[in-house]
C-alpha cells in the first residue's frame, strides 16, 4: 500500500499524510455508522423505529448530530482547570486513534508493522485513561470526579486479564507482531485461534516457522475460554454495559463528561466508539483470523485480480470488527449494570486467576508438543 502510494505521488510529505490519515477517515466513518447502528439496533430491540426523519430511515442522522454538535456553544466552566479541561478530549481520542497505527487492515495495509504490535496497542490504548482522569478532575464536578475515578479503576484492572488473554496467544505463536498472528491463522476457518489455532505448519510473516498439526485441537477449549475472557475484559475496558459504571446514567448523570458540551463531548463519544472498534478488531485479529477469509483464500487470488485481495481482506476485517461491535450494542440494550465491587470481584477473583491458569496450561502444552 505504501509502495503504491509512493509510486503514484512520489516520496514526499503528502504521501505520509495520506497514509496516516486513512485510518482516521475509516475510524470517523465507522463511528458515524456505529452511532447510527446503536440507535437503530436499540430501536429494533425495543419495538421502536429509531430516527426516521433524517434522510431515508434516518440513515444520515449521525451526520446531522455531528453538524449540530459543531455549532453548539463550547462551554468551559469557570471553576474548571481550563488547560486540562480542554486537553482531555484530545488525549482520550488520541489514545484510541494512535492504537490503530499497529492494526493490520489487510495483508498490504498496516500503519506500522511493529514487532511489538500487541504491546504497542495496549500501551497506547491506555493513554485514553489519562484523558478520562484529566476530564473528571478538571471539570470540578463531583459526579465527573466519581466517574473518572471509577473508570480509571476499572480500565486499569481490566487491562490485566485482557493483556493476559492475548498473552496466551503470544505464548503459542511466540510473536507480538499482529501481522504474524494473523498469518498464523491462514488457510481456513478451522485454523483460527478460537478453534484451536493452525492445524498444519505455517511460515509467519517474520519468517519464523510455526509447527502445528491436528493435535492442536486440544487448544480449542483453552482458546475459546481465552476469547470469552478477552471479550468480557474488552467490554469493561470500553465502559460498555454491563460494565458501564463510569457513565452510569442513573447514578452519575453522565460520568466524566458531564461538563462537556459541543464538539468536545463529541470527541469523547467518538473516542468511545473508536475504542469499541479497536478492541473488536483486536479480538478478531487474535482469535478470528483478522483479515483472513473463512475459506482460506480470497476471490481476488482465485480469479487472478491482485488488487482485489487486499480490498477483500479489509472487508473481512471490517465485517468481523462490526460483528463484535454489534454484539456489544446487543448486550448493552439487554443487560442491567453491575456494581463497583462486583465489577472488581469479577476482575480480580475470576478473570485474572483463570487467565493465569490457562496461560500455565497453554505454556505447558506448547512446551511438550
Amino acid at each position, binding site marked *: 500500500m505504501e509502495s503504491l502510494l509512493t509510486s503514484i505521488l512520489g516520496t514526499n510529505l503528502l504521501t505520509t499524510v495520506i497514509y496516516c490519515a486513512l485510518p482516521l477517515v475509516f475510524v470517523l466513518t465507522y463511528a458515524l455508522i456505529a452511532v447510527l447502528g446503536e440507535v437503530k439496533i436499540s430501536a429494533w430491540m425495543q419495538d*421502536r423505529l429509531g430516527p426516521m426523519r433524517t434522510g431515508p430511515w434516518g440513515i444520515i442522522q449521525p451526520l446531522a448530530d455531528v453538524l449540530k454538535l459543531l455549532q453548539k456553544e463550547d462551554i468551559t466552566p469557570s471553576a474548571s482547570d481550563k488547560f486540562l479541561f480542554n486537553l482531555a478530549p484530545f488525549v482520550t481520542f488520541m489514545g484510541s486513534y494512535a492504537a490503530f497505527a499497529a492494526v493490520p487492515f489487510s495483508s498490504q495495509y498496516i500503519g506500522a508493522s511493529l514487532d511489538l504490535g500487541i504491546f504497542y496497542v495496549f500501551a497506547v490504548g491506555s493513554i485514553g485513561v489519562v484523558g478520562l482522569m484529566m476530564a473528571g478532575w478538571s471539570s470540578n464536578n463531583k459526579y465527573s470526579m466519581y466517574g473518572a475515578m471509577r473508570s480509571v479503576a476499572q480500565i486499569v484492572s481490566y487491562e490485566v486479564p485482557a493483556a493476559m488473554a492475548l498473552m496466551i496467544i503470544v505464548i503459542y505463536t511466540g510473536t507480538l507482531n499482529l501481522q504474524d498472528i494473523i498469518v498464523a491463522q491462514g488457510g481456513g476457518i478451522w485454523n483460527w485461534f478460537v478453534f484451536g489455532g493452525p492445524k498444519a505448519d505455517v511460515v509467519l510473516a517474520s519468517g519464523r516457522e510455526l509447527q502445528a498439526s491436528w493435535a492442536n485441537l486440544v487448544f480449542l477449549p483453552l482458546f475459546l475460554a481465552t476469547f470469552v475472557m478477552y471479550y468480557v475484559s474488552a467490554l469493561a475496558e470500553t465502559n460498555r*454495559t*454491563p460494565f458501564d459504571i463510569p457513565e*452510569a446514567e442513573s*447514578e452519575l448523570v453522565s460520568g466524566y463528561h458531564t461538563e462537556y458540551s459541543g464538539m468536545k463531548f463529541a470527541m469523547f463519544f467518538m473516542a468511545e466508539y473508536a475504542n469499541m472498534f479497536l478492541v473488536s478488531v483486536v479480538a478478531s485479529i487474535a482469535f478470528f483470523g483478522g483479515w483472513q477469509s473463512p475459506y482460506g483464500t480470497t476471490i481476488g487470488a482465485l480469479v487472478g485480480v491482485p488488487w482485489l485481495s487486499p480490498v477483500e481482506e479489509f472487508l473481512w476485517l471490517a465485517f468481523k470488527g462490526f460483528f463484535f461491535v454489534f454484539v456489544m450494542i446487543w448486550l448493552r440494550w439487554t443487560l*442491567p449494570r*453491575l456494581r463497583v465491587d462486583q465489577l472488581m470481584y469479577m476482575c480480580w477473583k475470576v478473570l485474572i486467576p483463570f487467565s493465569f491458569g490457562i496461560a500455565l496450561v497453554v505454556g505447558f502444552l506448547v512446551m511438550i508438543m
Partner: protein
Amino acid sequence: MADLKENIAEHIESGRLKTDELILHMGPQHPSTHGVLRLELVLDGEIVVKVIPHLGYLHRCFEKHAEAMTYPQVIPYTDRLDYLASMNNNHGYVLAVERMLGIELPERVEYIRVIMAELQRIASHLVAVGTYGLDIGAFTPFLYLFRDREYILDIFEKTCGARLLYNYFWVGGLSHDVHTGFEKEVGDFVKYFRPTLTEVNTLLNYNKIFVQRTANVGVLPADVAISYGCSGPMLRGSGVDFDLRRDDPYSIYDRFDWKVIVGDGEVGTLGDCWDRNMVRMKEMAVSCDIIEQALASFPEGDVTTALPKRIRPPKGAEQYARVENPRGELGFYVVSDGTANPFRVKCRAPGFVNLSVIDEISQGHLISDLVAILGSIDIVLGEIDR
C-alpha cells in the same frame, strides 16, 4: 459481597479508615430521583454515611386548594397527587366524603371502581418495575412495560376521555358509565397480560446481574417498617401480611377470592429491594385475578342513581378513609364545617411516609445501592410533596 460491606461498615465504625466526608447533592434534576427530589448524601468514598432528603420541590398546595374548592371540585386535584394512580386517589377521597354523607352505592358502581382501581394498580406497578429496571441499568424492559401500559390507558381513555388524570370516580358514583365493549376489552387485556409477567421475570427479575444488584440490599426489617409507618409493597416486602383491601375492607374487595402477596426473601434476605420489587410483580397477577372475578359477575344497572345534588356533609363530621394505593396506604382525613367546601383535607401520602425510611436502610451501602433502594421505594413526588 455482604461481608465486604460489613467489613467496610465496621471500619467506619472503628474510625480506622475514616477519611474526609464528601457531600454530594443528588437532584432535584437527576435521572434516578424520579422527579424533583433532592438527596443530600454524606459520602465516605463511595459509601453512603447519611442521606438527608429535601422535599417540597413539587409542593403544589393541595390542601389549601381543597379548602377553597367544593367537595366535587377537589377530585381533579386528587388526580394530580399520585399521577400514576389517579383512580386509586379518587377512590380514597370519594370514599371519605361518601362515608361522611352516608351514601349507599349501586352495585355496578362498586364493580367498575374495583376493576378500574385494579387496572390502575397494574399500570402503576408497570411503571414502577420498568423504572426500577432503568435505575439498575436495563433500559429495554422499561419500554416493554410502557408498551403494555398503553393498553390500559387505551381502555381508560375510551371510558373517561383522559389518558392520565381521569376525574372518573365521583361522590356517589362515576362521572359516566363505561363504554360498550368494556368487559371484553378488559378481559382481553388480562388474557394478553399474564404471559407478559413471565416474560418480564425472565428478562429482568431473575437476571443474574439484577439479582446481584438488588438482593441483600436495603434490607428493611418488619418492626422498623411498622415503626416508620411504611405500607403497601414496602411493608409486604418485609414480610408483614397486611393489605387494606383485606384487613380494613372497603368497596367490595371482600367478595373476591384473592391472596395478599408477602415477600419471602427468595433470593436474599427478607425485606430487601428484590423482595419489594417482586411483591409488585406478583401483585399484578393478583390484580388480574380480581379483575377476572369482577368481570365474571359484572352487574347491569345505573351508575348515577346515588349522585347527591348538594354535597354538604353535616357540620363537624369528619372521616379518615384509607385505601390501598399501589404505593401503600393512602388516607384522606376530611373535616366538614357544614358548608359546600371542606374545612380541612389532609392527605396521608404513602410515598411521603415510605420515603422517610431511606436514611435508615441506605446507610453503609454504595451509591449504586442507594439508587437501587430509592427505586425500590417507588416514589411519586406528586404525592410526597402534594
